[in-house]
């Protein structure tokens, strides 16, 4: 890696956390305002990429809850699982279900999209950066 700017290196982690918070916020507001799992996931990817470029992929991996591939697969699994709630209650696959308090399988599905995008794209980014 080329010599890094101290300022960038010092601010990378706070900015990463900020971006991650923003990503989660975008994910959660997505159902009613512009946002959602895809965009939130991309913002999280931007955060992870920042960490990976400034501090190396090693720290970026450490600050992610799961290894990229596992995260991506978890995302697909979550989306799949959210769709299976319908058939259990006698509805077709991927029919979403809401509770009275406003919780729904839609959130689970969108969280799955978020994780799939975050995991898969960071997987590509790390692999490309580690290649040199």
């Amino acid at each position, binding site marked *: 890696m*080329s010599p890094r700017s101290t300022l960038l290196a010092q601010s990378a982690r706070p900015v990463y956390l900020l971006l991650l918070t923003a990503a989660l916020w975008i994910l959660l507001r*997505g*159902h*009613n*305002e*512009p*946002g*959602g*799992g*895809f*965009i939130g996931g*991309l*913002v999280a*990817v*931007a955060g992870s*990429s*920042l960490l990976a*470029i400034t501090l190396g992929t090693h720290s970026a991996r450490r600050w992610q809850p799961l290894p*990229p*591939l596992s995260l*991506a*697969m978890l*995302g*697909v699994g979550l*989306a*799949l699982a959210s*769709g299976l709630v319908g058939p259990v209650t006698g509805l077709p*696959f*991927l029919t*979403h279900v*809401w509770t009275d308090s406003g919780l*729904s399988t*839609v959130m689970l*599905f*969108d969280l*799955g*999209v978020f994780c*799939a*995008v975050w*995991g*898969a*794209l960071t*997987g*590509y*980014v790390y*692999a*490309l*950066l*580690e*290649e*040199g």
Partner: protein
Amino acid sequence: MSGAHEHPAGPTWLWLAAIPLVLFLLLAWGLVRQPLPWQFDAAWIPSLSVSLAFRIDGLSALMLALVTGIGTWVFVYASGYLAHEPRRGRLFAVLLLFMLAMVGAVSADNVIVLFLFWELTSLTSFLLVGFQHRRSHARSAARQALLITMGGGLALLGGLTLLAQITGSWTLSGIVAAAPAHLADARLPYALLLVLLGAFTKSAQFPFHFWLPNAMSAPTPVSAYLHSATMVKLGIYLMARLDAAFNDLLLWEATLVATGTVTAVWAGVLALRERDLKRILARSTVSALGTLTLLVGLPNPGAGLAVVTFLFAHALYKAPLFMVAGNIDHATGTRIIDHLMGLRRAMPWTAAVAVLAGLSMAGLPLSFGFVAKDVMSAAKAEAEVLALVSYATVFVNAISVAVAGVAAVRVFWGPPETARGPVHEVSWRMLLPPLAIVLLGMEFDFVPTADPLLLAAARVIAPGLGAADLSASYGLDVLLSATGLTVLVGLAFFLSWDRLHQRLQAMHWLDRYGPAATYELLLRGLALLAARQTRLLQHGRLTGYLRLALAALLGMGAFAWMNSDTRLSLSWTWPPQAWAWLVAGVLIVAGAGAALRLRDRLAVLMASGLVGYGSAALFLFAGAPDLAFTQFAVETVLVVVAASVLPHYGTGQARAVPWHAGDLLLAAAAGLGTFLLLAHLDGLPPDTRLADWFGANSLPAAHGRNVVNVIIVDFRALDTLGEIAVVAFSLLAALPLLAGLKRGTPT
């Protein structure tokens, strides 16, 4: 080989045997309590007539008993056989998946569900045959098994769909019930031939027989389970299930009898060419499968009984014999019969199993194989088969006797081979399973009888079957007619095995021509074709790709335009906030123009990023904030990551690309074409039905005000699921490629 056993850390997975055991006990309990058939039906994809319809009758119950019963012992055996295999967890997982697929395949009534489980068994078989994936012959054997059985599976799908369209029923039971009214349908022969293609590939019938011996690269528990007792019987099972409807057709009868006979005889001849005990057994399995196909093809009710008895007997002697071969391999390190002698002293229990199983295979008294042989000869006498088929049967049975002799007598008797050092008997987990299975195949008084189940299964194939006696009768005439001749001929084969082997081995033309060689030829041709078209289309020059894509797009657009009577209706209205559109347009044009002129790679990247940002700005003002948002994020990540990866490839100047008049013309035509298309679309009256529906239903039906997000996660959730699955799995495929780049060996 034996000696100090170092068990690698980790579970032995013995407890997994409880899963098939519980299924088996449930089945047994159900058979006692509940009269057959059992039915279950749940909607799945009603619009395509696909429902989760399951129906268990006598034939299904027999198959289920084999799958779960033998499965239980195979799991016990595997836990002993694979005690030294560090990757055994993977094998057990796939084995379990296979068992469940098998359970689904033999109980499915809906043809699509049957097809899905059928292909799942092929897929798991592929993984199990290729388990030793570092050996190239295991890989090619796995690929061969997959290509042949899955190719046949596709034919099966076509055949079953055609059958469903002819009869109007999507269930096997419905097809069998409705078939008599449609026997004159002109499409029926094609449907049946396609179904038979699927069944023949699965059950290794000539000319698709060669994959089964090669599949012996799989670990022995797999060979005993998939490639002798269960999966390869799936084709027989399907033919037997459809037999009640079609056995009056000459096409059906002739195809089955001819293919079965040829397979049985040819596999018997090829068995004599083998020296590897496991491959000898595999050849004789193919021979037995041929006999079963022949029996299914016979039109009389007794043949139905013969099918199920022989199928049952074969599973009960062949699975233990494979385990015997596995035990010998485990203890001595070889399966080549020339190096194996006198093992009875060192491995008395294995020898005992081999003798009992050999007894049944040779069709000698005391064994269930004797009963099966009796029923089979009665069926053939009743059907008045051609003399040629009768001679073939004698030959095939004699080969069985000889193979039984090789597996049970030759390797265990005689002076022990001393060159190898001490040989020890294997552990109880590898002895108890074959012993238990082989004892079930004996006509001992303490063994519980399976006769009611066999009769119930036979009545599915031959509804006209009356009461039948399945106990052994030891009249002198029976002994002489059914057994005497074949045992004598078999004995002759056994004694002259080595001489016959040398003769056959010298016939090299058998290797050069024939189905297996044809398969290799086709495979090489396919690879050649792929290489040619890859060189033509995937040459790696980006300009070439662009040229081809743009030219194709233009060509198709022009073709569509000329063949329609639409008139170009250009309209020009200034959108609200037109200045913003103009600014975005200027950004895009500036970025594209700069990317053309600049030579520094980093600068080109930045300039092309400008195109992306310009498009995002355009989306923002065109009322698509979600799209703009996404475009901004994608563009940022792409530019930043690409910029930090670029230095690895050298920061040098990009090579100057000379201008080609042709390219310039193509680019201009593509640009103009796109412009005209968009301008035309803008002039058309907009069809807003979909947008209106989504807009009206987003909040009341899906509780969301952001229509775009509601479409993504709810209305079109299945599409999204597919998309994220593609994204995630693409990483799985890309990681090894990127790692290859890292090592500098692009593969």
